[in-house]
C-alpha cells in the first residue's frame, strides 16, 4: 500500500470515530438525564405547580382545622414533596374526597402543607344527538335533590329551569341554555355566602353563587349535577379559591365553569380539591386564624438535572417564544431529511434548504392553505420574469424588480386574506421574502431553459419533499423531543457525516439506469 492510501484509511478511521462519538454521546447523555430525573414520563415540558397551604393561628383551647387534599384523576396528578408535610395531621377519606385534620390544644402555630400538581387540559364533546334523559337513580340521589344552598325545588328556580329548557330535547341544548344564562350573569366579587336563589334574585354572583344556581337548574330537570371546588393555579400567593360544577352526561361527569367560560372543558391549571358543596377550610370557632395559598409555577418534564442547556428554562427566563427555539432546532432535522431525499432517494428540488424553509413556514400557516398560497405567489411572481427577460433587463435589476413583485403580492395577499378571512392575514409573512424571489426566478428560468413540463416536475418534487418534511417536523413528539433534548442534533450531525461517505446508488438511479442493462 502506498502512503496515500494509508492516509485515506486513517482519514476514514478518524471520520468514523468522530461520527460514532457524535451519534453515541448525546444518546448516552439523554439516557443519563432521563435516569437522573426520575425516569421517562413524558416529553414536552408543561408547567407544574408547587402548592403550599399555609395556616397561621393562635388558639386558647382545643382546636381542629380541617381541609381537603387533592386526589389523582384523569386530569391531575399530585406528588407529595416532603414527608413532613403532613406533620401532626391525620388524613382520612370521605366519599370521593380526601381530607386532612390537625388537632391540638392551646398554642400558636404555623402549619404548612406542600404538594406538587401536574395537570392537563380536558375537554369533552357532547354529541348533539344525545337526547335529554331524566335520572331517578337512588344512587345519585345526592346529586339530584335540593340542599340548603342549592334550592333546586324552589318555585323561582323551577320556573327558570322550565323556561330555559322549553322546546329543547337534547342534553346539549338544555345544558347550553343553562350555561349561557349563568355565564351571562354579571360576576360579583362579594365574599358573602350566596345560595342559588340569592344568585337568581340579584342576577349577579361570584363563582360559588353561579355554581349553586347552575347545579340547582340541572337538578330541577333531574340531571345529576354537583359543585366542585379547588384553586386556579398561577404564580402567586392568594386566599381565593374557586368553584365550578360537574354534570353527569351519559354516565360521565363533565366539567363546566360558567364564570370563566369553560364549557365541557377545564384548562390545565385548575386544581380540583373536592367534590360537593363544601367549604375548603373548616375550623373551630374561637381561633385567631389566617391562611394563604402560596403557588409556584415551574417547568415539568424538562429533565433539568445534567442538562447542559435547558431550553425550556432559557425560554422562560429570556422571554423567548417557543416557536423561535423550535425553528432553529428543527432546521438541522429538516436539512438532514433533505440530504436523505437527495442522496439516498435521489429526489431533486429547487435549492437545498428551500423545502426545509417552506416546511417551517407551513408549521405556522397550515399545510394545504400554506402550500396553495405559496404556489400562487410563486406563480404570479414567475410571470413577471418573462417580460423582464424579453426586454433584456440586466440580472441585478431583474431580481430586484421580482423582489418588489414578491412584496406587492404579499401585501395584496394580506389584504385579500384580511377581507375574506380565508386564512390568517399574516400568513404570507411567514414565507421568507428572499426565498420567494429566488424560487420564482428559478422556476421562470427553468421554464425558459427546459420547458414548463420539467419546471413543474421539479416544482412537484420540491413540494413533495416539503410535504414529507412537514409531516415529520409537525409532529409534537419530535418538536418536544428536540426542545427537551437539544443535544440530539449532534447525533444528527454524526449520522449526516456517515451519510456523506455513503457511495451506494440512489433509489431513483435504479429507475434511471434501468435501460443501461436492458441491452
Amino acid at each position, binding site marked *: 500500500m*502506498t502512503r496515500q492510501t494509508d492516509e485515506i484509511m486513517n482519514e476514514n478511521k478518524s471520520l468514523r470515530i468522530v461520527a460514532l462519538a457524535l451519534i453515541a454521546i448525546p444518546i448516552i447523555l439523554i439516557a443519563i438525564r432521563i435516569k437522573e430525573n426520575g425516569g421517562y414520563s413524558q416529553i414536552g415540558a408543561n408547567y407544574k405547580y408547587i402548592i403550599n397551604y399555609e395556616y397561621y393561628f393562635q388558639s386558647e383551647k382545643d382546636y381542629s382545622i380541617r381541609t381537603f387534599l387533592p386526589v389523582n384523576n384523569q386530569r391531575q396528578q399530585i406528588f407529595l414533596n416532603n414527608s413532613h408535610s403532613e406533620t401532626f395531621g391525620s388524613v382520612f377519606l370521605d366519599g370521593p374526597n380526601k381530607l386532612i385534620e390537625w388537632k391540638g390544644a392551646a398554642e400558636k402555630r404555623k402549619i404548612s402543607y406542600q404538594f406538587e400538581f401536574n395537570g392537563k387540559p380536558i375537554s369533552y364533546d357532547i354529541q348533539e344527538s344525545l337526547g335529554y334523559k331524566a335520572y331517578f337513580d337512588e344512587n345519585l340521589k345526592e346529586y339530584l335533590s335540593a340542599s340548603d344552598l342549592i334550592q333546586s325545588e324552589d318555585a323561582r328556580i323551577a320556573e327558570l329551569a322550565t323556561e330555559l329548557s322549553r322546546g329543547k330535547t337534547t342534553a346539549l341544548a338544555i345544558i347550553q341554555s343553562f350555561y349561557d344564562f349563568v355565564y351571562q350573569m354579571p360576576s360579583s366579587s362579594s365574599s358573602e355566602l350566596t345560595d342559588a336563589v340569592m344568585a337568581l334574585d340579584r342576577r349577579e354572583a361570584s363563582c360559588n353563587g353561579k355554581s349553586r344556581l347552575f347545579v340547582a337548574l340541572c337538578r330541577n330537570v333531574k340531571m345529576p349535577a354537583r359543585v366542585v371546588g379547588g384553586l386556579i393555579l398561577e404564580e402567586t400567593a392568594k386566599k381565593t379559591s374557586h368553584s365550578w360544577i360537574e354534570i353527569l352526561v351519559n354516565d360521565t361527569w363533565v366539567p363546566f365553569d360558567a364564570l370563566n367560560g369553560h364549557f365541557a372543558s377545564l384548562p390545565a391549571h385548575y386544581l380540583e380539591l373536592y367534590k360537593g358543596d363544601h367549604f375548603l377550610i373548616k375550623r373551630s370557632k374561637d381561633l385567631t386564624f389566617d391562611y394563604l395559598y402560596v403557588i409556584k409555577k415551574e417547568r415539568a418534564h424538562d429533565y433539568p438535572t445534567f442538562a447542559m442547556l435547558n431550553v425550556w428554562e432559557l425560554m422562560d427566563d429570556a422571554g423567548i417564544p417557543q416557536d423561535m427555539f423550535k425553528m432553529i432546532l428543527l432546521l438541522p432535522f429538516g436539512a438532514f431529511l433533505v440530504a436523505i431525499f437527495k442522496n439516498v432517494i435521489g429526489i431533486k428540488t429547487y435549492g437545498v434548504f428551500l423545502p426545509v424553509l417552506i416546511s417551517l413556514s407551513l408549521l405556522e400557516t397550515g399545510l394545504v392553505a400554506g402550500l396553495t398560497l405559496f404556489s400562487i405567489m410563486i406563480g404570479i411572481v414567475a410571470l413577471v420574469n418573462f417580460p423582464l427577460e424579453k426586454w433584456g433587463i440586466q440580472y441585478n435589476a431583474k431580481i430586484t424588480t421580482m423582489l418588489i413583485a414578491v412584496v406587492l403580492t404579499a401585501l395584496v395577499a394580506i389584504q385579500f386574506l384580511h377581507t375574506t378571512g380565508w386564512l390568517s392575514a399574516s400568513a404570507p409573512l411567514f414565507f421568507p421574502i428572499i426565498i420567494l424571489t429566488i424560487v420564482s426566478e428559478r422556476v421562470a428560468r427553468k421554464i425558459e431553459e427546459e420547458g414548463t413540463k420539467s419546471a413543474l416536475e421539479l416544482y412537484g418534487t420540491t413540494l413533495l419533499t416539503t410535504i414529507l418534511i412537514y409531516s415529520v417536523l409537525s409532529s409534537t413528539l419530535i418538536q418536544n423531543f428536540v426542545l427537551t433534548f437539544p443535544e440530539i442534533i449532534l447525533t444528527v450531525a454524526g449520522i449526516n457525516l456517515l451519510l456523506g461517505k*455513503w457511495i451506494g446508488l440512489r433509489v431513483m438511479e435504479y429507475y434511471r439506469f434501468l435501460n*443501461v442493462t436492458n441491452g
Partner: protein
Amino acid sequence: MAKTMNWIQKIANIRSKVMGMNERNLSFIYPNNSRKNYKYADDKCLTKSILHQHQIACPTTYAVIDSIGKIEQAWQSVSEWNEFVIKPAKGAGGKGIMILKKKEGLWHSQGNVISDHEVCTHIANVIFGIYSFGDSDVALIEEYVRPHRIFHQIFPEGVPDIRIILLKGVPLMGMLRMPTRQSNGKANLHQGGLGIGIDMTTGRLKDAYDGEKHIAFHPDTQNPVAGITLPHWDEIIAMSVMAAQNFPLDYLGVDLVIDDRKGPMIMELNVRPGLGIQLANREGLKEALERIENQKTIK
C-alpha cells in the same frame, strides 16, 4: 416468482455495473480532482491558455471582455468577423451561449435579427455572472465551429459535440451529443438532445438515446445514426489523453467538436461529467473506473 427473480437480477446487475452520483462524487471526483484545480476546467479562458501551451487545438479566441466598460470597444473589434460565438468563461450546461451570424449587414441569432444593443446587454449579463452562479465572469468571443459535414447528413442544425470520460489519462467511455429540433440547437441531454454511444476502439456510433429509449435513427430526419464511424477518431482520443495528462484533473470529461476544415478541437473540460453517458452506451462505468483506480494503488 420468476418475475421477482428477474427484478432481483436486474437490481443486482445495476448495482454491479452502474456508477451512481454518490460513488462518482466520493470515490472519483473528490480524490482525483482537487478543488483548487477545478478552475482549470470551470474557467474556459484558463482551459484555453493551457491547451495553447501544449498545442492542443481549440477554437480561436477573438476577444475576452472582463468589464462592462470594455464591451463597446471589444464589440467594434470583432465586428469584422462574419460569425462567432459569445459565451461565459465560467458558464455550465451551455447556458449563456449566443451564436451570431452576419447576414446582409445585420446580426442574426437563432434565426432572428438582433440589435447591437441587445448583444451588448447579453455580454453585460455574462460579465455580471448571471450564467455563472452569480460570480462575476468574463465574456469570451471565439470562432464559430462549422460542424463536420458528416453531422450535417444526420441533422443539419446546431453543433454536435463529443464527450470522452477519462480516469488518470485512460479514456473509458465516449458519447456523441446531437441536437434535435426539440433541443433548439443545443446538444445537452436534459434539454432534449440525443446521446449516442461510441465504440471506443473504432469510433463507430451506437444507437441514439433520446431520454426514454434507444433508436437507430435521428428522430427529426429519420437519417441513420448507428453504424456511422466518426472521422478523426484516433486524433480525438489522442487529444483527450493529451489534455488529461496536462491538466491536474484525473477524473475528467473532455468535450470536443469536429470542425469541417480544421478537424477536432477541444471546446471545454468538465470536472463533474454526467452519468447519462452510461445510458447512451448501454454500458456501466463502474467496473472500468474501479479497475483503473485500483491499478494505480497496487503500483
